[in-house]
């Protein structure tokens, strides 16, 4: 497999990238494979290796650091393909959350590690980590714990915010370092793990400027919102496709249920929300990196995509009827992903405030 180089990609190149990712996903991470891994809580090293080899893990890592130098447009293209089968395996946390933090902080060494296959994650839900100064002013001794960290059990590198006497400071901790332990949580979404990270004197390296964690975290929130929104739209579209297909086959009262207006209108409602969110995601993908509307429009796209995915996943089960309520059916995997995704970057209220504050309200 050849490494993806995304610098100055054209629309055509992006279509080709999406096609290549789709082939890879269908080959190595179709829904039934994702389900098998999820049920056994197993990590698929082969899938991660394939994503690294294809340049997806380092999608947003600059080319100078061995990455693919991708933009938001490529991020959307890849997240869309992965979302369709609920494949992730570390992509969101590594490429969309950790990479923008490291890039904004100019941490070239850590970016190189990502391009070479290290998995990373960012603790987004705060916690009470305190950072104590050590002899080395780039190193902090860390105490406390932080919960709900995506992929905490598989990450090689955990980025978290520590409270220090110089303010909130971003820190990178090696997952194998002494004094760090991870407890995997039972999760609603079976396809993406979360964990509690405990720090008992573990040492972490300061990322960026001491006291500068807020700016770095906001980068993770914006880029993460773009990737999550793309993924949620893909979830909504896939669920809708499955519902429409089933409604065309399932016969009741002597007719396919898809010919009943009540079922049609349910699917049309799913389509309306999905297409609005899709337009929002495409709009955000087209904005240049430094655009001053990026944070606002990314937050809008995310909100719209959440609404579409949760609605579609809920109604998709309804269209399927009883079979959709069984464990064996895939509907609940999408339903779980849709609901869990809506919590990754904070509550509805927090997102509302993000939108309004960007509008100066």
């Amino acid at each position, binding site marked *: 497999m050849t490494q993806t180089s995304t610098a100055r990609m054209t629309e055509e190149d992006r279509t080709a990238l999406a096609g290549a990712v789709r082939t890879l996903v269908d080959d190595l991470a179709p829904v039934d494979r994702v389900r098998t891994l999820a049920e056994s809580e197993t990590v698929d090293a082969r899938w991660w290796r394939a994503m690294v080899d294809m340049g997806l893990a380092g999608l947003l890592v600059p080319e100078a650091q061995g990455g693919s130098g991708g933009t938001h447009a490529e991020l959307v293209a890849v997240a869309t393909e992965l979302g369709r089968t609920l494949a992730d395996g570390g992509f969101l946390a590594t490429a969309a959350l950790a990479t923008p933090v490291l890039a904004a902080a100019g941490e070239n060494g850590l970016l190189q590690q990502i391009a070479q296959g290290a998995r990373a994650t960012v603790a987004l839900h705060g916690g009470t980590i305190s950072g104590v100064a050590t002899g080395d002013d780039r190193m902090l001794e860390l105490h406390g714990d932080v919960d709900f960290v995506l992929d905490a059990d598989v990450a090689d590198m955990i980025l978290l915010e520590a409270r220090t006497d110089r303010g909130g400071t971003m820190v990178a901790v090696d997952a194998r370092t002494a004094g760090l332990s991870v407890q995997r949580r039972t999760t609603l979404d079976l396809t993406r793990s979360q964990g509690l990270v405990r720090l008992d004197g573990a040492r972490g390296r300061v990322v960026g400027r001491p006291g500068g964690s807020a700016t770095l975290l906001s980068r993770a929130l914006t880029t993460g919102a773009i990737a999550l929104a793309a993924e949620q739209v893909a979830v909504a579209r896939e669920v*809708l496709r499955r519902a*429409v297909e089933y*409604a*065309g086959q399932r016969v009741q009262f002597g*007719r*396919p249920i*898809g*010919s*009943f*207006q009540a*079922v*049609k*209108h349910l*699917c*049309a*409602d799913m*389509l*309306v929300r999905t*297409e*609005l*969110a*899709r*337009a*929002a995601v*495409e*709009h955000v993908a087209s904005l240049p990196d430094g655009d001053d509307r990026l944070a606002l*429009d990314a937050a*809008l796209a995310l*909100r*719209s995509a959440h609404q579409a995915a949760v609605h579609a996943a809920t109604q998709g089960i309804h269209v399927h009827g009883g079979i959709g309520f069984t464990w064996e059916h895939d509907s609940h995997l999408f339903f779980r992903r849709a609901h869990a995704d809506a919590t990754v970057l904070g509550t509805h*209220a927090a997102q*509302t*405030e993000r*939108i*309004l504050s960007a*509008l100066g*309200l």
Partner: protein
Amino acid sequence: MGVGPVPDLAEFVRRARSWLDENAPRVADRTELPSDRVAVFGGGSREQERERFEALREWQRRKQDAGFGSVSWPAAYGGSGLPIEFEDAYSELESQYVTPEPVEVLMISLSIESPTIRTVATDEQKSRWLPGLRRGDLVFCQLFSEPGAGSDLGALSLSACRDGDGWVLRGQKVWTSGAHLADHGVIITRTDRAASRRQALTAFVVPMDAPGVTIRPIRQMTDGTGFNEVFFDDVKVGDDLRLGDVGGGWSVAMTILGFERTAVARDLGAAGTDLFDRLVALARRCDRIDDPTIRTALADLYLRNRTRSWAAQRALRQATGGLLGPESSILKLSFSSELQAAGDLAAELLGPAFAADNGQWGTFAWSELMCGVPGVRLGGGTDEIQKTTLAEHVLGMPKESR
């Protein structure tokens, strides 16, 4: 214009700006308070409506004579023969100036009926009507719905019967916007009782002052009277007024529908955040800007507004041959729910001042919007027709048994 090299867009914009500077005040320089009307299908007397109509018609004439009224139309019809980007650039620029309020029948005439004429009429008809249509000298309304044919267009029964060289029209149309202001109307008639709807219908252009045409206003629930019922009692029309083939009326209607979708998308894609901005100002005036209920509703409204606008722009980018397909039904559906959300938020902010006029600017006016929303959900294909269109023509779901 229309021959020779395409001029530079920047040069065109510069010329347009200097013409607009001479002919209209900028929005930012407006001294008087803008109107507090936020109505859809709103009120006002027929006299007020005619004044607005004449003001807008005069504006279209001035634009046309200056070369900005039909930017992307061929010179033969009074246009400037420029690419569509020039027209978009002009519209964008014009939105920064205070221009006459929109009047529905003129929008229909310029954005829906005139491109339909250009697509389906004979060369003789085009040169007869299009120069006048483009300048606003000639205004066409659209005669579709009937008492017995609302959602079911194929069921229409107003008949056109052969009469020597011409035709005689008999029957009734209803919900005709601006019939009282228009010079002519594009009418879909039934010319064959037996044939299926695809062959039974024929389109004509009928003068609204022809003997036998009676126009009566419909007073809507907003108290406005923009719509009419139009009666045709043995109205004679020549065969030279037939639009398209005998039996080709369904196809003319579908052409009109395509331009209507496109016009709606252009409107919705270009529309700004006026209602949202007004509601933010209202929330501040009511001292509710920090109320979490209001903040949630404001963010929700802004989200609806932006996604609808992005979806309209996307639909226009992806339109094949410049025309939108059935997927554009999502725009109309999202627009009606956006208006509903705006009305609900205004009602919540105003409390009793929403239901009774205390004379304060920008308060009771919101009730007129609320009273218009049920009409938006009905007009141009009901919400349910739009959903069925999406399900059958976009998602490919099985047809209902009809």
